């Protein structure tokens, strides 16, 4: 039993103790990056102040401590996502994007033949599109897209045809533009029924509900530390050990080898093979602290809170602006996360965001690295507001006040 209180989380996050432009911070950009609680920052400070040394090298005390810290973080990640094979399946990367590049360059380039099919969706972030296009150029694979319907959800009416002969379905757990959550367990069954594996972009979903690769039958999972209250500079790539063992190294260098001779090299076994060079040790420590913190809140409680904030915001936006502010995403909160992409009548998203800034409201204008989706809905950009575990209804108050100002200024 947890006692999750969004106000207490807010008190735990140092950045909420500052003002911006003379107003309290209304941070509504957690889909871009979350704000870390003090526990995360202090864990990293403590690491640098007391334990820092390079990992997997020295045998002196602090080197052992640093190695234990780094490997301890790996174990925490494995538990957090319920990795069936434990820490030996968790590779630390720089971020979700690097995890997808690892998947495409290592698994994809070694396992896929010309003409093989990778299926993605129209709601993917560029991180789950461009590496496959690059593989199409270098290996001659085919990339297919599951379309998004007018209801802002995946249109699965032709999915059997699209998955025909596919080797991989690579799909987001939650759209960073629409807020749409995908039914990963159902998609995993679909993929497996067609003989394909399933990769999941967990960047948006891991901090806003429970993630369980075993329960959902997922084969590959990618996510970032900084979107789950952790630091930037660290991401995760997970796959089952049997798949991992068949993957060749992606980046070469120190730390990833078993032997190097003048005539060649032998890569290390296990996850070390994918972690060339000195890894992000302090960031792993910070990620570990973020996982502990999130687990303390309770993923289901966080999800329920964000759902209620979203329901309230959808209702109040409609009430305040009667269609002049359109939400590009599902209008109800079933299978939907706390991301609100706004199209404000007659006001460019950049101008919307700029006026909101004067109200202390942080939103993200732009195409959100999802241009196929923007094209799908005929938009160049939106202004996106997104909730986190520390968000409160008063953030929505500030958002609505700022939107009214923007409409007034540019009308």
């Amino acid at each position: 039993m947890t006692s999750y209180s969004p106000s207490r989380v807010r008190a735990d996050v140092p950045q909420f103790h500052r003002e911006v432009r003379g107003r309290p911070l209304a941070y509504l950009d957690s889909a871009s990056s979350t704000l870390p609680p003090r526990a995360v920052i202090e864990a990293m400070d403590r690491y640098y102040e007391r334990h820092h040394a390079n990992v997997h090298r020295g045998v002196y005390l602090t080197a052992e401590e640093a190695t234990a810290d780094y490997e301890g973080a790996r174990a925490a990640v494995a538990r957090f996502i319920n990795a069936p094979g434990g820490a030996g399946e968790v590779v630390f990367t720089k971020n979700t994007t690097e995890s997808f590049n690892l998947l495409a360059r290592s698994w994809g380039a070694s396992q896929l033949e010309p003409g093989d099919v990778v299926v993605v969706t129209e709601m993917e972030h560029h991180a789950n599109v461009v590496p496959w296009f690059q593989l199409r150029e270098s290996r001659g694979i085919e990339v297919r897209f599951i379309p998004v319907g007018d209801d802002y959800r995946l249109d699965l009416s032709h999915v059997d045809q699209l998955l025909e002969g596919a080797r991989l379905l690579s799909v987001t757990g939650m759209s960073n533009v629409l807020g749409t959550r995908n039914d990963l367990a159902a998609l995993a069954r679909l993929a497996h029924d067609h003989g394909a594996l399933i990769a999941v972009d967990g960047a948006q979903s891991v901090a806003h509900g429970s993630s369980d690769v075993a329960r959902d039958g997922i084969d590959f999972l990618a996510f970032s530390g900084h979107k789950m209250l952790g630091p930037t500079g660290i991401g995760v790539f997970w796959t089952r050990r049997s798949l991992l063992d068949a993957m060749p190294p992606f980046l070469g260098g120190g730390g990833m080898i078993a032997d190097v001779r003048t005539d060649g090299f032998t890569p290390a076994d296990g996850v070390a093979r994918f972690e060339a060079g000195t890894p992000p040790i302090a960031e792993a420590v910070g990620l570990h602290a973020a996982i502990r913190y999130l687990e303390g809140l309770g993923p289901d409680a966080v999800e329920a809170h964000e759902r209620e904030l979203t329901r309230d915001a959808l209702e109040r936006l409609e009430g305040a602006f009667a269609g002049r502010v359109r939400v590009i995403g599902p209008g109800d909160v079933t299978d939907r996360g706390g991301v609100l992409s706004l199209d404000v009548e007659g006001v460019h998203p950049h101008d919307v965001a700029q006026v909101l800034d004067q109200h202390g409201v942080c939103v993200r204008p732009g195409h959100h690295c999802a241009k196929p989706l923007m094209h799908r809905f005929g938009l160049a950009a939106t202004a996106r507001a997104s909730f986190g575990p520390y968000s409160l209804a008063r953030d929505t108050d500030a958002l609505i006040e700022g939107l009214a100002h923007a409409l007034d200024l540019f009308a």
Partner: protein
Amino acid sequence: MANLDDLYREIILDHYRTPRNRGELPTPPARRVEGFNPLCGDEITLYLELADGRLADIKMTGRGCSISQASASLMGAAVKGKTLVEVRAAIERFRQLMTVTETRLDEGAEPALPDVRSLGELAALAGVVKFPVRIKCAMLAWATLAQGLDEASAD
């Protein structure tokens, strides 16, 4: 502290709401050049009529935020009819206006604003530099114009 009024000066809102030199010119004789700002989806198409070493006429189409569209409108008014040497000089002056100077790592350090007295209406855009993310919005039309002149001189 940078204030919203520094950015959305009345003159900018006026050029955004009532953009000057909108439209197209027949190509040829005019040249057509396109510019995009991939980050926010701003786009602009310029039609440049060059004759006797002058930018004899300029028209533009496009869509985007108030800063990109107002900057384009103000640019058209500033360069139309000028010699190409003068146009190049205007582009360079505007580029300097939009350059962020190195600031210290101190809290609250703000860049000093340049002397804008010689810039006329364009001075209204000087405040953009306080909002570094918006600089590329303001630069879009100018960079596109520079590209058009480069292409013309390469022919």
